[in-house]
């Protein structure tokens, strides 16, 4: 797949540029120092994870309407990348929390929403691999893909109210950033976007190949 090769090289280059922005261009944050640089990786990871979950939602609706294999494969690919990226966002967020507030975990609405979504979509991936029959599995996963995304605003809002009564450990992230810091955030958002696209398209291509291999195998069995 030549496009994936080009995209892979592009994403490597974009990530390298992003790293240069993080370490050389963006100024050192006064109070937090070098630990603040986690933010430039953490935020794009969380952002693209949410985009992945939205893609799962749209592809799932499309699958329910059209029953095509492509939408199902795309939903699966996006969910895998989403779980990976939200997992990394959680780990980087936890390291940030430990360095900044001396706690590994705090009830922040964004962090909590990311964790709950990680649980939901990890369950979704378990369901995909549960050995259910082909078309039935695709339908069940599509229904879960829709239901899971409908839950996102409710989870976020409830996590926000839950926290408001408790003492807030966390100040608003990203507030009061220098212009150089904002540029670094945007560059990394773009770089991780290219990486996200590469991973999703790569996994989608792999899913298509798996489907073709299965069809060939079945055709071969029938022919024998």
């Amino acid at each position: 797949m030549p496009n994936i090769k080009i995209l892979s090289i592009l994403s490597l280059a974009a990530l390298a540029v992003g790293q240069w922005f993080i370490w050389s261009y963006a100024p050192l944050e006064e109070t937090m120092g070098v630990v603040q640089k986690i933010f430039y990786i953490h935020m794009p990871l969380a952002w693209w994870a949410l985009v992945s979950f939205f893609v799962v939602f749209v592809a799932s609706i499309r699958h329910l309407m059209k029953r095509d294999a492509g939408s199902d494969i795309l939903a699966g690919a996006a969910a895998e990348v989403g779980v990976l990226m939200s997992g990394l966002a959680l780990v980087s967020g936890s390291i940030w929390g430990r360095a900044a507030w001396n706690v590994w975990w705090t009830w922040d609405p964004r962090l909590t929403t990311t964790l709950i979504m990680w649980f939901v979509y990890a369950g979704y991936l378990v369901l995909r691999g549960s050995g259910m029959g082909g078309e039935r599995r695709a339908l069940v996963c599509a229904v879960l893909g829709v239901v899971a995304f409908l839950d996102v605003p409710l989870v976020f809002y409830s996590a926000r109210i839950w926290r408001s009564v408790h003492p807030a450990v966390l100040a608003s992230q990203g507030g009061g950033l220098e212009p150089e810091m904002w540029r670094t955030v945007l560059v990394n958002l773009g770089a991780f976007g290219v990486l996200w696209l590469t991973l999703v398209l790569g996994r989608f291509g792999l899913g298509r190949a798996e489907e073709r291999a299965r069809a060939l195998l079945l055709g071969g069995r029938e022919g024998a």
Partner: protein
Amino acid sequence: MLRRAAAIAGKDLRLSVGGGQGLVQAMLLGLLLIFLFSLSRPTGELVSGQAAAAIFWLASAFGLVLVFNDLFSLEEVGGCRLGLLSSPVPEHSVWLGKGLAGFLLLVLSQMVFLPAAAVFLGQDIRGSVPTLVLALIGVDWGLAALGALLGALAQGQAARESLFSVILFPLLLPVLLGGIRIFAGVFSGEPAPDEALWAAIIVAFDAVFSAAGAFLFPFLYTGEE
């Protein structure tokens, strides 16, 4: 549609109460959970209202899984699901009927959990009883709407109970948090200042997943094995 849903709910309730395993299992597991969590209370100390409310709703969530697994397994014997699907009953009625039956069975099991929370966790209803009843109905509605939708996952036994709970629990978080916060206020006698906001979340959850359940259930409940 409503009449048919009521017929399905009636059939499920008769089967579950008279000889079914789901309700008894749900009650026993919930009781066991409440008792086991009471062990976390150091001797002579009280469990906070919020901790007791969280334990109560955790027991209810586990009960929900067992209740809906049982309700959907009723038609797995002897091809009854195919019979139900080929009858003139629309799938929506099946969802509504299962949801209604699940709701009532859940309320029944909570009638056991509530006194158990009083006994094992040392709680008392110090707040308003109507608030407790309304919150119970609101949260249970949301639980039943989603339970009746995703319970159909267990169809054909390809997905097991464990998978059902792994998928269901994180989705239930908003409505469970609402239930915990309101129940904590009722147990402690100090209502949460943001009770109205939690009530709004519970109503929104019920509305979203009732609509989603009604729309999506026919995709899940099919004749496939």
